[in-house]
Structures are given as structure tokens and as C-alpha cells.
């Protein structure tokens, strides 16, 4: 495995191996000395052509805990925002000797363009591209679900997940649907019809427009962020109506089955897709998703750059 561009690049064994490696690395992070020497002398570039402080610092923390050198190349003040081409940026990073490039980009497929080109030899890790995929988010979500719902199983067989909201524009949803399906979970999408893509018929998911009907039967409710710009583009009449039908409020929280959990990739619109009392409730694992994100991203870097998974006891 050289790049992580899409969940579809992964076999089930590889996905489970990343989660297992993350479990081991999480133990390291819980110890007194949080750092491993594995990637000492390796250079990882965070190329963020789109704002995302939380994903960037998560990858940065992960790389530093593996002792890699980290260069942050963010859109603001960088050449990407000044109109330098992706090609020239890639040539520059190649000339600087990057071993891996973690890329966040507004254009779907930009990471694949980097990986497939001859401009750069580094490993490419997709940290979210346009409305395409966000594979590290899906892996950290699967890690979180496994921890809470899998009862010790290595995969997510039989676990039922509802993904709720703007599937059309969500890279988080696309990666999660692929990974949850790969790991044996069943997925229900809940959204207004306007926010589901044409062509969704072939996806391995159930589709519902009725949130209340789906809630009681699932183990995980994963809420998606509603982008402000969707409001003005006829996808739904207004924020109040969206919230009424597709928001996770305290009434709907009561419909959830015992032991089920609430997830959100962040950042949240409190009061729109998720009520504050739900986000802060005991069922919410939203903050834990963030800390799991560091372990999972460590595992991704470990597997891609050290070329191996970390078996239990090997550390």
C-alpha cells in the first residue's frame, strides 16, 4: 500500500489491520512517553489547500508522535491560494524530499491526480477531497464504532448505522459507506431526496426519508454537517424545516435503542443538525472521535511509511 486515496483502495484485511494498529498505538498514546521513533528522519507535508484546522492538527499530532518531521503547507499564504498549479506545488514538494503528502483539497480527485502523476513520488494521503472521500475520517469512525459496538469482533459485522444529512456533498459519507460495507455493517441513509445523489441506486445502502422510523433500529446515528451554502440553493426550504425533519434533537434521542451511540465528524452546527443537549449527552462519542482520530492517523502513516502493521506486543 503506497497511497490512501479512497476506501476502495483497501481490502477488508488491510482495513482491519489499520484499526488493529491504531488500537496498539492508542496504548502508546496513553502511556507516559507518547512518542515512537518509527518515522524519525521522514518528512511529512500537510498540504492543506482548504481550511481544516482539526484534520490538520490531528495529522500533525499523529506524525509527531511517530517522530516524523512535519511541514505544514496551508492554503492561506501558500502558493496554492496564489494560483500556483497543483503540478508546480507537487514538483516543489518532490524537490524538498517529502516522503508523504497529506492533502486536503477542494477539488474532488486532487489527491489521485497527485498520486497518478509523475510529478511527485511521495505517498499521498487523502485528508478530504471536494465532495469525494475522506478515508481517514471513515477509519477513525469505524475504530470508534468497533470500540463501542463490536463486542470484541475484529470487524463491524451486523452493526447497523444510520448516516443522516447531506450525503450529496459529503466526502465523510462516501468514505463511511464504503468502509462500513467492507467491514460488514449495514448502512441506512436518511436525508431529504434533494441531498442524495442521482445514481445512488447502486450503493449498498438502504435509503429513508423518515428519520423517526430509522432511529430505533440502529446502533449508530452518524450526523453529517449541513453546509451554510446549501441553504440558499433550494436543497430545502429553510434551516428550521431541515432541523425539524432531519435534526437529531432530544425527542429523537429518546427513540434510540439502548447502548446506541451518536457520532458527528465535526464541526457541528449546534441547533441545526444536532441539538446541543444531544451533542453533550452520554450517548455522544463526538469528542472521543477526535482523540481516536490521532491514533488512526498514526496507524495510517505507520502502515504507509513503515510498510507494516503493528502487531500486539511488538511495540
Amino acid at each position, binding site marked *: 500500500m503506497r497511497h490512501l486515496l479512497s476506501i476502495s483502495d483497501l481490502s477488508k484485511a488491510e482495513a482491519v489491520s489499520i484499526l488493529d494498529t491504531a488500537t496498539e498505538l492508542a496504548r502508546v498514546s496513553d502511556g507516559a512517553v507518547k512518542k515512537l521513533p518509527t518515522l524519525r528522519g521522514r518528512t511529512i507535508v500537510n498540504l492543506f489547500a482548504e481550511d481544516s484546522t482539526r484534520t490538520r492538527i490531528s495529522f500533525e499530532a499523529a506524525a509527531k508522535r511517530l517522530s516524523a518531521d512535519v511541514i505544514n503547507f496551508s492554503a492561506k499564504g501558500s502558493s496554492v491560494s496564489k494560483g500556483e*498549479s*497543483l*503540478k508546480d506545488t507537487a514538483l516543489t514538494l518532490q524537490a524538498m524530499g517529502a516522503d508523504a503528502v497529506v492533502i486536503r*483539497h477542494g*477539488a*474532488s*480527485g*486532487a489527491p*489521485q*491526480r497527485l498520486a*497518478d502523476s509523475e510529478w511527485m513520488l511521495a505517498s499521498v494521503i487523502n485528508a478530504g*477531497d*471536494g*465532495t*469525494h*472521500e475522506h478515508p481517514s475520517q471513515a477509519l477513525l469512525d469505524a475504530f470508534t464504532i468497533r470500540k463501542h459496538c463490536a463486542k470484541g469482533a475484529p470487524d463491524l459485522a451486523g452493526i447497523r448505522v444510520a448516516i443522516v444529512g447531506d450525503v450529496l456533498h459529503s*466526502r465523510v459519507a*462516501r468514505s463511511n459507506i464504503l468502509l462500513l460495507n467492507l467491514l460488514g455493517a449495514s448502512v441506512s441513509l436518511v436525508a431529504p431526496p434533494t441531498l442524495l*445523489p*442521482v*445514481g*445512488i*441506486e*447502486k*450503493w449498498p445502502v438502504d435509503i429513508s426519508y423518515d428519520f423517526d422510523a430509522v432511529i430505533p433500529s440502529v446502533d449508530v446515528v452518524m450526523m453529517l454537517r449541513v453546509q451554510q451554502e446549501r441553504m440558499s440553493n433550494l436543497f430545502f426550504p429553510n434551516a428550521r424545516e431541515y432541523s425539524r425533519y432531519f435534526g437529531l434533537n432530544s425527542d429523537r434521542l429518546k427513540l434510540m435503542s439502548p447502548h446506541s451511540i451518536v457520532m458527528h465528524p465535526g464541526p457541528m452546527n449546534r441547533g441545526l443538525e444536532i441539538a446541543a443537549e444531544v451533542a453533550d449527552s452520554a450517548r455522544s462519542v463526538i469528542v472521543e472521535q477526535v482523540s481516536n482520530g490521532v491514533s488512526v492517523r498514526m496507524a495510517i502513516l505507520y502502515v504507509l511509511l513503515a510498510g507494516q502493521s503493528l502487531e500486539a506486543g511488538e511495540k
Partner: protein
Amino acid sequence: MTVKGYLIKNAQMPDGGIKDLLITDGRIHSLAVGINDATATIIDAKGCVVLPGLVDLHTHLRQPGREDAETVLSGSRSGAKGGFTAISAMPNTSPVADNAGVVEQVFRLGQQSGLLDVFPIGAVTQGLEGAALSEIGAMADSIAQVRVFSDDGNCVFDPLVMRRALEYIKKFNGVIAQHAQEPSLTVGSQMNEGEVSAVLGLKGWPAVAEEAIIARDILLVDHVKSRLHICHVTTAGGVEIIRWAKARGINVTAEVTPHHLLLTDELARSYDPVFKVNPPLRTQKDVMALREALADGTIDIVATDHAPHTMESKECEWQEASFGMLGLETALSIVQKTMVDSKLMDWAQVADRLSTAPARIGGYSDQGRNLEIGAKANVMIINPSASWTVDKDLVVSKSRNTPFHGYELPGVVTHTFFNGMATLIDGALINSGGSE
């Protein structure tokens, strides 16, 4: 080189017969079995097919304005290489060809190249903006004698503007070539809307955005009794609407591009913008419907939509890249591959779809003539049993954006004659058409 014409020996005519064809004084002098002429240059065309010179009704030459991507001369050379003796320059240049001055400039540049006829297409609306009619009459009366008008790249969206344009061109038997794309359904669209766009997260360009305009304009042209041509049809649904219109006797013609006869939206999975084109590559079902429609005449012609772009406008992210593909040099090979080798059409139908019919639609009277004694010698030869491998670095066009790089294609264009003058001999351009 002074020659007394060309004698093409033992060539297969479009109708399948084997004959010799003598070209002298710019015309087809004779056509028979066993012609001898000691003064002519002899071309052994055994195993090859002779067709009337190809006529493209949809070409982007980029001059004036983007001479770094293509010029009238470089596009003409690309055309001669592909077997064309006439091409039609779309008006989306900078400045736009929406007045007599620009169309005359393009026409003159074509004449200077001397490699083929360059027929400028005039803009329907000023600046291609879809609001006010351009100087259609002045362009028709100019030395370019424009008969085809199009806002290609943009749709003539406003139904009243379209109605008025269709009516106005009746004065001189013109035709409106419509780029059928409902704009509000395609804001920011990147590729065909369907299963592949859903997975790739690229904004969809729905088939209905094309079909809705085709249907509307067919109803309009029937109402005002004018002449409508639909550019680059890409969808099975569009084919059905045109078939319905023709059955009712409505005066509509349609074109399909070579790339839409072969390629599908699956290629977008690479995110390589060389496959980004407008209208977009559709599905296999659409491809098969287009082939069937071309064979049965529902779609009248093949037109290339040759759209050169510089490297930097394709070496980037998909959504940043320009729309468009090269087409002139690969067109006939793609048609052979998709239509002839698959037994959907014979060479006589190829001659109709790539020469006779486009010349008729465009009103190009010295082009698209059947191979007949006395006609201007606009002729090309293809060796259908030879094959070649497309190499983007070897194309004649100034640009490199062919989607067929690396494809092995059947059919090698060996000779092109424009008004009796050889522009391509044994696959090599012999008249550079002067300097840039």
C-alpha cells in the same frame, strides 16, 4: 513539384466498386476501370477506400485569441492529416466571431493556409451572451458567406432569442446549430450525472439538461418553419426526441462526435481531465443508442468538436480543467472502429455522414460531392486494413489533449486532396500551408 494531376489506381469506391480515379486541373477528370495517364503521379490504392473529402461542421480553431492552443493554420493541418477538406470554425474565439470583421478574418486565414476550406460559423448572439442577436445578416453577406450560426459552448437559452434567431436566418436559408444545455440545471457541472458522478463526488451534468433544450427547440423550429441543427447529441433520450421529430417531418438535423461514439463516463474515474468534455461522456447505453442513430440516419452526421487546449489547462485538478478534446486526426478511425468494423455502416454511409450530409447542412456546395466526373477534386483515401497507435506527442494540432493517447486504432488516412491539390501523401503533410 509540378505534376499533371494524380491517378489513383485500384481504389475501392464508397459503393464497393474498384476503379481508377484521375484528378487533373483541380477536378475529377475521369473515373473508370483501367485508366492510363503517363503524366499523372500514380497512387497505388489497392486495398484502400476513396471517399469524398471529409467535412467537419464543428471545429474550434482558437484564432483569434488563443493562438497558443491552435491557429487556423495548425487546425487546418490537423484537418488535412485526418482526411478533411473542409472544417467549420466555431465562433467562441476572443474576440467572438459575432460580426463580419472576425468571420472574414478567419475565412481569409483559411484561404491563406490553402489546405482546406475554413467556413466560419457566426455567433447567434453578441458576445455569446444569449441576449441580443449578433450581426447575422452582415456575416451572411460577408465574403465568408456564413450560413451556420451557433453560440457553441453556450446554449441559446432564452426561448424568445432562439425563436427570433430561427426566424431571422430563414432570409438566406441559414441554420442555427444549438449547443443544447439548460444552464440552470448545469451550473458548475463536471461530468455526466449518474452512478459514476455519485461515487466520484463530481457535480453532475444531467441528460435532461440536454434533452429539454432539444425538445423545446424542435417545437420552436416546427412552429416557425426554419432549420435547426443539434450539436453533439450525447444521450439516448435526445436520440428518441430527434427520431420523433423526424418522423413528424420537422426540419432538424443532428450530429454526434467521434468521442461520444466510443468513450463513456467510466473514464472519469481516473480524474484525468483529458476526459473532461462538454457535453460530457455518457454511459454505454447512450453510446450504443448514438451508434444506432447514426446508422439509421436519425443522427445525420459525425462532427468532431475538435477542441484544442494548452497543457496547463488540462494538467490540473478535474474541476479546474477546460472542457474539450482533439478530434480531427482520429475522427475517421473512430468511426471505422465503432461503425464500420462493427458492421453498422458501410463506406457509402461513412461518405454520407462525414462528407455529403455535413456539406449539405452547411451549404458548402463544392464539398461533399459524390465522387463524380467534373466535381471539384476534394477526395481522401483511407487504408482500412492498416492500424496505428495514437501518440499525443505526434499530433499535428498545436495541442495535445487527445483522449485516445495509446489507443491502437484501425484505418490510416493516407491521402487528402483539396481542390485537386495533394495536402497529404502517404500519411505525410506535403504542403505546410505557409508559415504562422
